[in-house]
């Protein structure tokens, strides 16, 4: 089959208002462009709120600082979770869905008024949840496990947000259908769009699961239902709580491919292999939700092991495929671009001064080494007991959601600003250092929380000195050191986050309007538009640098995995 995306053969394309991007050659529907802008701006606003709350959490958990009183700590921790794990991420993901469908397929966005309704519901829901959290009496953490009960508007806000996001997904699917019907492309959709499709499918499962559990919980908080079974709640809630983070994985992997294509002209090594990896996500990634319930006595070992071991490992296989094919496609493109000497010239001469590339590559490396490896360890039933409910768990998911997703989304923003907002990036020197500051800070947060968790520090705990406990307990000096370093690196990450917000807001408000003939400060590859929007592989196996990187990854993976089994053997003595 010839599967090429054909540009500009739409029969009803004239019905929409299009412009042609001077850098990519893609046709951009005005309605899609405005919605992408709105969702991206909302995302950054909630990142600012959630990031500030995260800094307050880290400064409170730093024993020498211990900033907030207990009630404020739990309030801010609840708000931090909702703002960064849901609102920042999902607003940005809706922007990614509209970009990957309408823009990459050269198609109009159907029913833009409906899309605005979804956006409005998301904004209203996010505001309601934030207000009710700040009012107090809803400090139930992101997970809001019964029998802890928040105010009804806490759940209502989340439900409205979820309905809005579901509308965004529906618009995405409708755009795919219309693009096919109007023949704005032929054959298969581009890989980046396929990755966004994966994210949208997982989003539908996530939001449906959220509705199944949050609607009765809302009714319970209103007094209309007598009881919510805590274990039943946990099972269904985690289908939303963890799967929502799997939307992120699919979306940020798409952004990795997109950045490689636009900046370096990178095509996938093999469309079939990369799509198969996304297909593994579609089938199995959501099942990793079960690893939150590995310590629950009410669920059988069969359910736990089938979901977290057999099925989750198939999704992990997908991630490892992307871990090979993303750097591989970049290496292949760089060698084609003339950087063909030795094993690593392609990497040394990559555009490290371009924040989109630096953010993307740091995200790729740190997601794999920190979030990925620790996720497999946590997802192993026997090893999970070593770290269950310790601060290792937030260490792991900061490795996935912050160093992986957030950094990738930040990288993507540096492309959205010139291509969609049509503004030149202000303060390029600040923008250049931003991914490094944020990436190193976020990596430190993840690693030191994981280190403290390995030493037994509990998650979601206001005071590790147990100063008001009747029975005293003292953590090791190492645990205190880890929590202090976590605070230091949180400041570094917050600085990187603040620069990101500053550059984005500055660019949107004051950035030079891009006109015809303007040369971008951070240029794109001449063939970037075609590489990102057309089906096609860069079939090569000459990837010595990638093979070395992947080999290093596997050695680290195997060593860390077996080190944890060694730890377990020391705790769990059979005599």
């Amino acid at each position: 089959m010839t599967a090429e995306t054909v540009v500009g053969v739409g029969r009803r394309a004239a019905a929409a208002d299009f412009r042609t991007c001077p850098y990519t050659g893609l046709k951009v529907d005005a309605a899609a462009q405005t919605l992408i802008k709105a969702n991206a701006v909302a995302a950054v606003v909630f990142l600012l709120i959630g990031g500030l709350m995260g800094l307050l959490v880290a400064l409170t958990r730093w024993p020498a600082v211990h900033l907030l009183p207990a009630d404020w700590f739990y309030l801010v921790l609840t708000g931090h979770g909702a703002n960064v794990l849901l609102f920042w991420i999902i607003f940005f993901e809706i922007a990614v869905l509209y970009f990957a469908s309408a823009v990459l397929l050269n198609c109009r966005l159907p029913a833009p008024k409906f899309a605005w309704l979804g956006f409005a519901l998301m904004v209203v829901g996010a505001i309601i949840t934030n207000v009710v959290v700040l009012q107090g009496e809803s400090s139930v953490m992101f997970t809001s496990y019964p029998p802890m009960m928040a105010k009804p508007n806490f759940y209502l806000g989340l439900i409205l947000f979820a309905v809005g996001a579901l509308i965004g997904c529906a618009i995405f699917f409708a755009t795919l259908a219309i693009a096919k019907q109007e023949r704005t492309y032929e054959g298969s959709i581009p890989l980046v769009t396929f990755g966004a499709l994966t994210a949208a499918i997982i989003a539908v499962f996530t939001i449906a699961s959220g509705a199944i559990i949050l609607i009765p919980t809302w009714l319970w908080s209103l007094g209309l239902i007598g009881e919510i079974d805590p274990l039943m709640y946990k099972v269904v809630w985690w289908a939303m709580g963890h799967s929502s983070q799997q939307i992120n994985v699919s979306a940020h992997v798409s952004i990795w491919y997109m950045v490689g294509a636009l900046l370096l002209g990178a095509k996938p090594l093999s469309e079939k292999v990369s799509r198969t990896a996304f297909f593994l996500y579609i089938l199995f990634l959501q099942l990793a939700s079960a690893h939150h319930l590995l310590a629950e006595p009410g669920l059988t070992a069969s359910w736990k092991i089938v979901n977290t071991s057999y099925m989750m490992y198939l999704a992990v296989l997908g991630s490892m495929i992307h871990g090979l094919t993303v750097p591989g496609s970049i290496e292949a493109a760089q060698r084609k671009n003339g950087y063909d000497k030795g094993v690593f010239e392609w990497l040394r001469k990559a555009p490290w001064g371009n924040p989109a590339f630096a953010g993307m590559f740091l995200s790729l490396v740190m997601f794999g080494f920190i979030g990925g490896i620790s996720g497999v360890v946590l997802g192993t039933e026997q090893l999970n007991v070593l770290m269950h409910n310790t601060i290792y768990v937030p260490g792991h998911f900061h490795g996935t959601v912050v160093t992986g997703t957030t950094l990738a989304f930040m990288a993507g923003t540096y492309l959205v600003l010139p291509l969609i907002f049509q503004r030149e990036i202000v303060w390029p020197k600040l923008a250049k250092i931003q991914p490094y500051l944020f990436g190193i800070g976020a990596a430190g947060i993840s690693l030191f929380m994981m280190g403290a968790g390995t030493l037994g520090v509990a998650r979601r705990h206001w005071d590790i000195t147990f100063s008001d406990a009747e029975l005293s307990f003292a953590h090791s000096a190492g645990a205190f050191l880890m929590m202090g370093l976590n605070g230091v690196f949180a400041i570094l990450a917050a600085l990187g986050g603040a620069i990101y917000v500053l550059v984005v807001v500055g660019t949107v408000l004051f950035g030079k309007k891009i006109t015809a003939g303007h040369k971008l400060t951070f240029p794109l590859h001449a063939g970037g538009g075609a590489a990102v929007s057309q089906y096609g592989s860069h079939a090569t196996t000459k990837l010595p640098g990638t093979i070395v990187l992947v080999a290093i990854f596997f050695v680290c993976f195997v060593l860390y995995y077996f080190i944890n089994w060694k730890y377990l053997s020391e705790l769990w003595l059979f005599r």
Partner: protein
Amino acid sequence: MTNETETEQTPEHVPMMQQILDNPFLLLFLGVTIPTVLYILWGVMEVASIPLAD
């Protein structure tokens, strides 16, 4: 000439796997059904089958 025209008009064979991957609504069905059965339904049935304490 006739043969060439016939060849051009013959629909190309699309491998089954590619047909699956090119159908977003089939993928949506699979991506919702499999975790619903393996994770939610199976998990809820296990919780529901826990005997109540006397």
